[in-house]
């Protein structure tokens, strides 16, 4: 088999679910457990440390809210990309995928600005339990946003030439997952008092 040819194993579908979508769901399932473990640790600590609410009050809630809006909007673009791919319109799907990753870029820029303010105020990773979880959770999520963006741009480059269009849906699924993780992080880190 040459480097690009696919094995027959890749083209079979005994379950009826396309193989690419199936593996995406498994990847998401394994990620859910990783974030789940970290979030559960945070929530249990948070319940036993009511004094962390004071630290949490220093977070920039408006920045988090704006980022929530950005991510949700970018997810809409991912859905539109999927729709275009279903209609076999690769270039259009690529355009929406690039818009989606632009959303990711805005998210990360706001995040960087926000962290700069936090750090200038003296709140760093080792400033206490809340801040440790705050940076770890948001940092891990941010890495997923970054990874999703990079993969999305690669998928978009193929899609623009009408190649591997089934990947548009998969990266979209992944992006929704990253989005949903943020939906959990935003209230737990910024709003909960």
């Amino acid at each position: 088999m040459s480097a690009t040819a696919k094995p027959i194993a890749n083209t079979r579908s005994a379950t009826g679910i396309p193989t690419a979508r199936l593996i995406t769901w498994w990847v998401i399932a394994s990620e859910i457990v990783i974030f789940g473990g970290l979030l559960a640790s945070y929530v249990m600590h948070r319940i036993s440390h009511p004094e962390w609410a004071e630290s949490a009050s220093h977070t920039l809630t408006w920045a988090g809210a704006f980022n929530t809006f950005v991510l949700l909007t970018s997810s809409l673009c991912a859905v539109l990309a999927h729709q275009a791919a279903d209609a076999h319109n690769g270039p259009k799907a690529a355009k929406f995928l690039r818009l989606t990753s632009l959303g990711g870029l805005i998210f990360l820029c706001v995040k960087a600005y926000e962290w700069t303010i936090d750090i200038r105020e003296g709140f760093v990773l080792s400033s206490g339990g809340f801040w440790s979880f705050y940076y770890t959770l948001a940092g891990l999520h941010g890495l997923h946003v970054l990874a999703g963006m990079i993969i999305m741009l690669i998928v978009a480059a193929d899609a623009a030439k009408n190649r591997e269009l089934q990947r548009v849906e998969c990266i979209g699924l992944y992006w929704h997952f990253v989005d949903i993780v943020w939906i959990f992080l935003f209230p737990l880190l910024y709003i909960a008092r």
Partner: protein
Amino acid sequence: MSTEVQHAEPGFFRKYLWSTDHKIIAMQYLFTGMAMAMIGGYFAYVFRMQLGFPNQYVPGYGIVTPGRYNALVTMHGSIMIFWVAMPVLIAAFGNFLIPLMLGCDDMAFPRINRLSYQIFLLSVLVLLSSFLVKGGPFGGAWTSYPPLSASGAYNLTPIGATLWLLAVALEFVAFLLGGINFTVTTMNSRAPGMKMYDIPILIWMIILANVIFMASVGPLIAGAVMLLFDQTMSTGFFDPTRGGDPLLWQHLFWFFGHPEVYVVLLPAMGIVAEIIAVFSRKKIFGYKTVLYTAWAVGFLSFVVWAHHQFVAGIDPRMANIFSVTTLLISVPVTEMVFLYIATLYGGSIHLDTPMLWALAFIAEFMIGGVTGIFLGSSGTDIYLHDTYFLIAHFHYTFVPIAIIAVFAGLTYWYPKMFGRMLNETLGKIHFWGTVIPFNVIFIPLFITGIAGDQRRVYDYAQFAEQSRPALQHLRTTSTIALLVMLSFQFVFLFNFVWSLRSGKSAGANPWRSTTLEWTVPSPPPHGNFAVLPTVYRGPYEYGVPGRADDFFPQDIPD
């Protein structure tokens, strides 16, 4: 498609080191795992020498200092679990057998498969590099409890601790990638006609193991990140003086750590199932019941973890609950063993080397299971937990899994992997030379444990209340038995290498088995099947009446 593409023979690098062929990747995992097993065995030799003959010069090592002793036991445990049992049982056998047993040409995602091995290799290199850094490799036990593991001032191996954590995290990533690939391949890429209950039990077991692994490892990956930050960026996730909680690590670790026991047990059980059916020429007794018990084990494995923490100061009411769940899990495991014994009953049993190993697995694992009852009950566990009784129990479960079942699988599939038979006489010498000393190593440790010998002590003479010179002969017996067992492994190595060239030619189906991997030449060519097979029946049709052969391969029409 791809199989028709004509191509030049690739060079050594592309063929053996950069290959996407599942069989080559299986060999990479197998040989890396075997090399790590030698390192892990060497460490066991060194610290057992210290315990058997305290503070004497150890040939091939030197004097064992207390700090070195800690590093040796930590590395022995970590290597044998993460870098021997998992790569060999799951990755090597899984990679080699999943596409062959399912009747397809490769994994669904061959390049993810290659990436999985490369990340695994990186984890090996990171771990080995910790042997060279200042302070040496990590010495805070394979469970890596904070605060011991979180602070270099306590474990005295600050760099080694961080490298260990990185290596373990990389290893997890490798197995997540590999496991997801295995699962997707099994769900989607089976040969036409192969229904859910036509899949060989071994494949079921490997997939269940991967699902259990995937569902349990996430919290520990999160915990590893937290511990890494505690070590390197002065956070206090596990530091009680700064609002953290050291018990949290134990929960995250054992939420993974106990399912991990079944992650390695299930593939071992699968290997044994395949071998028992072939060598008793009988259908597996209760194929579906084997699967139901495996699912029950998988489910229950998630609700037993705190039995590792009975001595860590958990709420006694919680200890009661976890005692009950722990004892419950022995029910499906026992049921599975009964099914295997029922398969043997009335069979036409052939005692070839693979069968000897499979039977030894059942016998030895049962001793491990029965002694586990004393540790699963919180009352007795409080006395026994920190003693050698636990060490002996653990090894009576883990050696059957990682050593005995692996030898069963290797001797059984060696003809398929390399095209030649292993020497039977050498195989039997190696078998008895391993199994008898294995019992002589660990039965004395049950006795010293009940007598009160604490684990994690490098020299009992240093502690007045621990000394018990009357037990020293048992400790020495155990060490000598280990030397005997290790020396018999050279018989296997010789047999393995010698048979590669000089073994009897195997042919496609030397054991007269029904599953699909035996329908292709040995070793299987690139792409596996000349014509991709169709499946007509279940995997264990032995002793079929009204046929010239006593077995009915899966791919032959009625």
